[in-house]
């Protein structure tokens, strides 16, 4: 049968790289890293894992975490688990762990002294449930960045803004030059994320925590947050001409100078890199929108479903170790544009923006992010609200804030 020949051929190609290593265990790894920068980064992980004599079977699911997670969860609960899977560490896999479907990695962690090497420490907290460690954090992703196109501002004849407020002020000039001031993709998580960033940057860390950690609905209805909604209102006005869906299409608008800026996480950096752009020269990044320079310790982590196969379980351990290996960390994070989870690695190759991030991290200006603080359910409701808010000018700031406060009141 032709299909068999084909798979055989594929397997052979794959095997060429690691010729001579027998008894390789195949481990299927699912993730949703499919954009250019992401795919290049995940290739580093696969290369490192394959070098240990095992074989990384790539199970990429395109779309976004929203598309991929249901499939991963179905497979784990359906009794056909993969070898390892990406989740955003935090509360996404909480129940899977509680249901005993995920593997306890405490032994591996103790052996590898994860508590010592992982930095900041709070990262491991996201992986810890009832004192046991269930996941391997691989990077730190922070949402709080404003990416600016130098070219766009040149064209519009306005100086490059230093923070969000200057950026808002520059919007009319940008629009006059036919440039979209702010690119926000149509997918709901992008508008929701942009608001969270504004909450942390315009409102400040305390405001952010009061709303999302303490879930103080009264505060969420108050004047502090109203200020943030005012900023979000500016943002939606600046973004109204964006006709793209995907985040990286929005990033591409900034790369090509069609849009002036984008509020997006540090993963956007990968796209600039793939496009051959240089930080500082072609584009500028403002952590915390230039208002509140902190790094949120969100990020990606790998979880390992409980498997019966002894060989595969062994391979899981190998993968867990590999993921935290300093060399892997450097290679992966350089490509991904994110920050490594251990402080003892050499990142000389990092670019301008990454270095800014590392500096903030070194200062210890960190805060938890929504993935750790809110349930997916609340996140989804939040997404619905802000997707509507950004797309529907008729939804007033006051109504939106009221609905937001209600949402916080029932959040978990």
């Amino acid at each position, binding site marked *: 049968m032709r299909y068999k020949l084909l798979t055989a051929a594929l397997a052979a190609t794959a095997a060429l790289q690691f010729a001579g290593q027998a008894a390789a265990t195949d481990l299927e790894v699912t993730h949703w890293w499919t954009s250019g920068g992401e795919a290049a980064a995940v290739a580093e992980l696969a290369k490192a894992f394959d070098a240990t004599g095992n074989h990384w079977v790539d199970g990429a699911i395109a779309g976004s975490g929203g598309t991929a997670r249901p499939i991963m969860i179905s497979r784990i609960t359906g009794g056909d688990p993969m070898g390892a899977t990406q989740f955003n560490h935090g509360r996404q896999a909480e129940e899977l762990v509680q249901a005993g479907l995920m593997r306890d990695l405490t032994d591996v962690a103790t052996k590898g002294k994860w508590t010592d090497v992982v930095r900041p420490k709070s990262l491991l907290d996201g992986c810890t449930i009832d004192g046991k460690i269930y996941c391997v954090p691989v990077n730190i992703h922070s949402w709080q960045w404003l990416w600016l196109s130098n070219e766009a501002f040149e064209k519009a004849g306005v100086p490059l803004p230093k923070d969000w407020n200057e950026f808002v002020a520059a919007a009319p000039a940008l629009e006059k030059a036919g440039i979209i001031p702010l690119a926000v993709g149509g*997918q*709901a998580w992008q508008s929701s994320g942009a608001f969270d960033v504004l909450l942390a940057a315009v409102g400040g860390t305390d405001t952010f925590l009061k709303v999302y950690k303490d879930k103080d609905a009264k505060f969420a209805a108050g004047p502090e947050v109203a200020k943030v909604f005012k900023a979000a209102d500016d943002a939606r006005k600046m973004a109204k001409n964006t006709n793209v869906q995907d985040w990286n299409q929005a990033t591409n608008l900034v790369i090509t100078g069609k849009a002036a800026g984008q509020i997006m996480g540090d993963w956007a950096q990968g796209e600039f890199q793939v496009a051959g752009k240089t930080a500082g020269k072609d584009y500028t990044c403002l952590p915390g929108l230039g208002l509140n320079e902190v790094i949120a310790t969100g990020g990606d982590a790998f979880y390992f479903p409980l498997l019966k196969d002894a060989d595969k379980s062994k391979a899981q351990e190998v993968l867990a170790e590999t993921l935290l290996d300093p060399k892997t960390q450097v290679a992966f994070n350089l490509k991904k544009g994110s920050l490594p989870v251990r402080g003892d690695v050499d990142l000389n190759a990092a670019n301008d923006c990454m270095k800014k991030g590392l500096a903030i991290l070194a200062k210890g200006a960190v805060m938890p992010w929504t993935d750790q603080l809110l349930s*997916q359910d609340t996140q*989804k409701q939040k997404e619905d609200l802000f997707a*509507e808010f950004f797309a529907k000018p008729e939804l007033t700031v006051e109504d939106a804030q009221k609905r937001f406060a209600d949402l916080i009141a029932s959040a978990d």
Partner: protein
Amino acid sequence: MRGRECTALTQPADEMSKSARPNLLFRNLNAKVASIPMILTAMVVFVGGTVWTVLYSFTNSKLLPRLNFVGLDQYYRLWAAPRWLISIENLLIYGAISLVFSLVIGFLLAALLDQKIRFEDTFRTIFLYPFALSFIVTGLVWQWLLNPDFGIQHVVRDLGWTSFSFDPLYNSSIVIYGISIAALWQGTGLIMCLMLAGLRGIDEDIWKAARVDGIPMWKTYLFIVIPMMRPVFITTLVIIASGIVKVYDLVVAQTSGGPGIASEVPAKYVYDYMFFAQNLGQGFAASTMMLLSVVIVIVPWAYLEFGRRK
């Protein structure tokens, strides 16, 4: 007259016949054995799955189903959610458009093709081919055609009409109509086929009689031919209506529910809350509402249509 339906009504006549009479359960045994897949599907999947769904809609199950009852909480939340209300409204609009236009366009095309025209095969193939394409593909193509930056709007503006505006997928107030454009493109071909088959089944003499009586063609269609095509319309309605309730891929491929939440539909709400939001209870509550409306509309009709004894 279909006779075997009286099997179940038979009763043992007396001792003599009783001895010769096989057990009721084993009568038509082969038919029953052959129907096991259908019975299992109906009972385990459709009925079982539905009961299970309804049961868990009264719980606060999150990522995994748990029997932690919270009464009607999920339903209160559901009917308070703006997104759900928009979804329902969109489904009604989309349903009305699909139903009316599918039937009208499908019937018109079939009537045109039935005029003994030349190239009938060619035209029929042209109208039918989109049905071979998935909603994902359909959605992608139309999303592209309707994109104001390089689709139809862009092309028309390049031709000189710079004020021309046609961006149904990017305009909250008309997005659901924009989605219907693609739905009709994909689905009317099949409806046309069904209608054409129905028209071909009409006795030629009807046309002769109408012509002799001097009845105009449109009146003949409206008052004579269409009433005669009742069975076709029923099959067609089942196909269209089941497609409407299930609409999902098309929306995802074209707008992902956007702009904002302007083009959300109930099936997407169910999916999103069950899997993205990891709130099974909420997803099941929405499912239950969908199932309930389907049952309320369909069961009495299906019973009349398929269950009556002739």
